[in-house]
């Protein structure tokens, strides 16, 4: 049995290209007003994101070209770098604090978000390791426990920043990768329960999260404080209706909706492009999931299969959390919408992940 290199999955590429294109248009539309007033430059975020996109697509091509099997050897090294950068960001003087959380390392010319690197490396590492240990995965101590410890360290470091949203996304992705590797349903059930308790604790022990959670249960009651973002997001979506107010016509972007070009960009999209625009983007994500899992199922080996499934899961989990928050279906947590939200690190690592998916899609069985 030999592997043969074929063409990459062009549908996936096209979907990602469209999502990124929609993203940059919406970033400009959503940010122009605030950028103009705050920085006297309406094109500020457009320009920054354009540079990231170019860089991201170059890195995507690189990721597509190399032989993904070599990643198996890089797995451990990647994890070490990830852990080190996660520790570094927690150190005063290295991590730059924005809105009370130290999530980024200022590199001078740009800033770098270690958790985005860690997310990608976690998937690569787990895919690499799990694909070697299918036989042990049914055992809790020998199979699951080491991975749980590993995930615990990564998640623990990120929640210290604090960044519950990303922690949750990584935990969910890791959990699903364990599930996809064939872990027992009983183990998975218990893990899910424990996970929920931990999330509950994380909310309960941190007053601001508790307030957000209570506001999530009845946002209209807290419309002027903790429920503000959710309500303004719903206002934006509702204003959009079926056909939208027209590109550039958002009203809620006039300082009403915070994070309007990052975490809540989808609300502005819904306001300007209406439910039709929402259908388009949701449809593109649906196709993305389909192509991603299709690549996983068609992959020539277990590593490729798990890696593709893990990367797809990583992107989809983030997207679903973000859309859940924007639609008021989940408590507010700061997580960007992949491909669309403004943000360099997120976009670049997501595009690298797509590059890897395209990479895997090129290898097929040679029957």
């Amino acid at each position, binding site marked *: 049995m030999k592997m043969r290199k074929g063409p990459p999955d062009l549908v996936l590429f096209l979907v990602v290209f469209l999502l990124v294109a929609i993203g940059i248009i919406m970033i400009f539309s959503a940010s122009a007003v605030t950028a103009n007033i705050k920085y006297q430059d309406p094109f500020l975020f457009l320009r920054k994101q354009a540079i990231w996109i170019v860089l991201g697509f170059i890195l995507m091509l690189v990721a597509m070209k190399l032989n993904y099997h070599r990643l198996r050897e890089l797995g451990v090294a990647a994890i070490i770098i990830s852990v080190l950068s996660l520790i570094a960001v927690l150190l005063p003087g290295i991590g730059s604090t924005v809105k009370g959380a130290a999530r980024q390392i200022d590199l001078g010319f740009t800033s770098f978000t270690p958790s985005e690197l860690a997310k990608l490396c976690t998937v690569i590492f787990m895919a690499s390791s799990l694909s070697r240990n299918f036989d042990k995965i049914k055992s809790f101590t020998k199979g699951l426990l080491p991975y749980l410890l590993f995930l615990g360290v990564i998640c623990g470091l990120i929640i210290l920043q604090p960044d519950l949203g990303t922690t949750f996304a990584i935990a969910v992705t890791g959990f699903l990768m364990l599930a996809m590797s064939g872990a027992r349903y009983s183990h998975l059930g218990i893990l899910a329960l424990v996970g929920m308790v931990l999330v509950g604790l994380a909310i309960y022990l941190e007053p601001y999260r508790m307030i957000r959670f209570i506001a999530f249960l009845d946002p209209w009651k807290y419309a002027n404080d903790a429920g503000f973002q959710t309500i303004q997001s719903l206002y934006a979506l509702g204003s959009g209706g079926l056909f939208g107010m027209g590109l550039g016509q958002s009203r809620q972007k*006039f300082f009403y909706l915070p994070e309007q070009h990052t975490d809540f960009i989808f609300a502005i999209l819904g306001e300007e492009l209406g*439910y039709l625009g929402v259908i388009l983007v949701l449809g593109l994500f649906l196709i993305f999931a389909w192509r991603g899992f299709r690549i996983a199922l068609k992959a020539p080996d277990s590593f490729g299969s798990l890696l593709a499934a893990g990367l797809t899961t990583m992107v989809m989990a983030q997207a679903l959390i973000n859309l859940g928050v924007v639609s008021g279906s989940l408590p507010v947590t700061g997580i960007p919408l992949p491909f669309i939200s403004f943000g360099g690190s997120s976009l670049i690592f997501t595009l690298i992940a797509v590059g890897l998916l395209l990479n895997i899609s090129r290898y097929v069985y040679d029957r």
Partner: protein
Amino acid sequence: MKTTNIESRKRIASLFLIFVALIGALFVRFFWIQVVRGDELAKQALDNRMREIPVKAKRGILYDRNGRELAISVSTDSIYVNPAEIKKAGEEEKTARELAAVLEMDEEKVLSLITSNSSFVWLKRQVDFNVSQQLKELKIDGIGFHEESRRYYPKGTLACHILGISGTDHTGLDGIDLYYEKLIGGQDGKIVIEHDAAGRQIPEAVHRYVSPTEGSDVVLTLDETIQYIVERELDKIVEARQPKAACAIVMDPKTGEILGMASRPNFDPNNYNDFPAKNRRNFAVNNAYEPGSTMKIVTASAAMEEQLVSSQDRFNCPGYIKVGGHRISCSDTVHGHQTFSEVVEHSCNVGFINLGLKMGIDTYYRYLTAFGFGAKTGIDLPGEATGIVMKESQVKQINLATMSMGQTNAVTPIQLVTAASAIANGGALMKPHLLKKVLDGDGNVQKVVEPVKAQQVISKETADELCLILEGVVLNGSGRNAAVEGYRVAGKTGTAQKVGEDGRYLKSEYVASFLGFAPADDPQLVCLVVVDAPKGYPYYGGWVAAPVFKEIISDSLRYLGVPRTVMEEKEEKTPSVAVPDVINLPIDEGIKSLQNAGLNAQVQGEGDVIWGQVPKAHASVKRGSRVVVYLSAVSEQSGQGKVTVPDLEGKSIKEVARILSQLGLHLAPDGYGLAFEQDLAAGQQVSVGSTISVKFQPLE
């Protein structure tokens, strides 16, 4: 190389289906938000972005019946800040210091206001013109001026209880300004503009303009001159007898129009906060008191209408009467045998009690109610009191007896004057009112308030006969002090012991009142004067209130030009007047002053200022006499003495002239208005007869 794991493949496929399901759920969720609830949310979102800027309606002017302004609105500036802009400039402390200095506010308070977390804060409302002018010159970014109207009552305390007061937000809080708030205040409009979250306007913003409905100008029934007479006379009695309260009402009995109404204590509606709140109580309408003998007009009306008595019926007064075991004494004297007219003239309690007992409770109450007691008159003022009338079912003979002489029940002055008006108006009770006309924006009459006849209480014959009997009270009885030379006056005195807090009658406090009308054969004016607890002796209505009534009625009748009905045999006397002091006045002012006093000026010599006058000031001369004024500079005699030059700044020409003339100095005025410059400095010693030239400048 391992091939892919079968179980893993199954799980991956299942996970894909889970994602499909979740995305499907999101499709539904967004459909729900955007399509099903879209309109509702869009409307809420728009409301959330709209800011309202109120557009105040113009407040209507209150005029007296002759078109003289009693309440107007003047525009003033209110100062607001946009703290965001202040912070942008980054000089909060310096700005706060500057603002505090100009606005005379506490610096720290200003600082906290201008740095507050808001896009709009009132700094100070309704500041004086020069203050806002000063602020405008400072040109501070983020400071804004909003033109607001302020109610201004140009006549000060005149008719304060009637006109009312208005708050900072320019709405009526009392009096006519409150009662007719909707009519006078109009309806505020607003501009609604879509704003961003920081309060900036959004480009292509949604605008809505709701125009205000301007308030109507209204004409009141009040006559400023009569009102002034009433106020003046009340001031006099208050000064002389220091009562706890006092009031007077002048009403036109034919229409129910209130021509004058005033209460004491009073207040200045422009600065009402400087007065105790109790001063704002309108005694004439808001208070009930036991009226005493003035209430006997009701007993008399009822008895006459029921034909229980006629004017020449004989009564005997042994000085007291026994009712159900109680002994009620009449007064200090025993009236003995008297006609009914004399019973009224002497205000004989025994006579009235006999009449009351004769007619019975039912009949008495029928007339009491018909005259409007125990119910509001419906006068257009807020807070009218109902008075306290004993429940008919609880009334015993002794109560009927005391009621017949004016005790037991409490009435408001407006009720009493309205009841008397019915007698003066041939038995027809007119509803008292203050609103005469409503004008539209161009000053045209939009609505006229027609007089409302509430009830025919007694027949015209009874009323006319009672008028004659009441005229006897003034001619021969207790009301002699109310007689007005040249007019036939009818009336009734009242002296009521006040009821103390324990419900017993007080020994030393009385309410003195006089209720009357003139001319008796064709009443034009009805007037009630009530003086609550006058100090000193005598405290009788005929001594305290009747003279006040007399002054009010006599001046008002003359002012109205009511022809005299009494032709006196003696040759008509020309009234004498006091010659005003015109020395040192500019020639124009001096002549005007003499003319106002009813005198003719004869000018001698040349010049601008009057040096001398004959007869001299304060001399009493016949109206229409000639006063010679000298303009040429008469040589100064008696110039030995030295006097100190006074400080004249801020004084009117008249005041300056008076002061200088007292010192024996001459005035050379320049300009008009208030003095602001004098050529000889204050404090300097000059000889008597020197001339000081003073520059005057007009008021703003």
